[in-house]
């Protein structure tokens, strides 16, 4: 057990199909997917939260709360754009449906395998567009996702 740097450790996969209703991917499903992090520059969202509801009463001045709706922030991935070929941009076309599987602490071995833990986000691609800027930086494009269902956290691959 040790602290770690996400860069170089955390892995991101686009997985087209996961049969498990609990969103637990198999090794075959992740292997049949595409690893995204070699071209990945920035990650936004992919966080799960809750909007608590204030429920004050006359007994106390303290404002108690009850659990409200579960929410997720807008999620997006920003990738480097290549002058010739952008296979990730092609596969994450607008309307594509699948799963972002995030191996937060990486994998035990060289490749994802049973026992590795990650978060599964059911998503569809809402937009996929270049970012234009005159700043001194590399060209990129951003893929925005629609979080289509409740994600599954800390699932262990089978």
């Amino acid at each position, binding site marked *: 057990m040790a602290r770690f740097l996400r860069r170089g450790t955390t892995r991101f996969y686009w997985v087209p*199909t*996961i*049969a498990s209703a609990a969103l637990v991917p198999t090794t*075959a499903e992740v292997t*049949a997917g595409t690893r995204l992090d070699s071209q990945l520059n920035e990650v936004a969202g992919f966080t799960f939260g809750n909007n608590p509801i204030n429920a004050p009463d006359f007994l106390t001045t303290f404002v108690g709360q009850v659990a409200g709706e579960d929410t997720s922030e807008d999620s997006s991935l920003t990738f480097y754009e290549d002058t010739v070929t952008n296979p990730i941009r092609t596969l994450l*076309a607008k309307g*594509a*449906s699948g799963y972002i599987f995030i191996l937060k602490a990486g994998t035990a071995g060289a490749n994802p395998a049973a026992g590795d833990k990650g978060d599964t986000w059911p998503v569809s691609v809402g937009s996929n567009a270049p970012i234009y800027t005159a700043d001194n930086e590399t060209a990129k494009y951003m893929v925005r996702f629609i979080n289509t269902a409740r994600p599954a956290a800390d699932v262990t691959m089978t």
Partner: protein
Amino acid sequence: MKLKEAEVAERNLDEGWVIMSHPDLEDSYSAVPLPAFEEVWEDKGWTISPLHNPDTGETYSEEERVAQANAAAEARAQEKPADAKAAGATGDQPEADDQQAPKE
């Protein structure tokens, strides 16, 4: 992900998408644009699935599906210039915010 046949049929016939499956993944299908299949997924062992369209009762082979997807993509590509021409004919102009103020 198990896709509903009717949903899949409508989508990929109209938009040039194909349904793919993987030999290691039983009863799992995914809808992808044909270019994505050719550029990425084919190399990862996915194959285009024959498609049964429940609306018409027809079944299409992999070759027919590729031809349909290509035809749909071409049709969509031809629609775009026509749309742009039509917009020009109606005198559509960029939003005011996009226009530069004249120099004094």
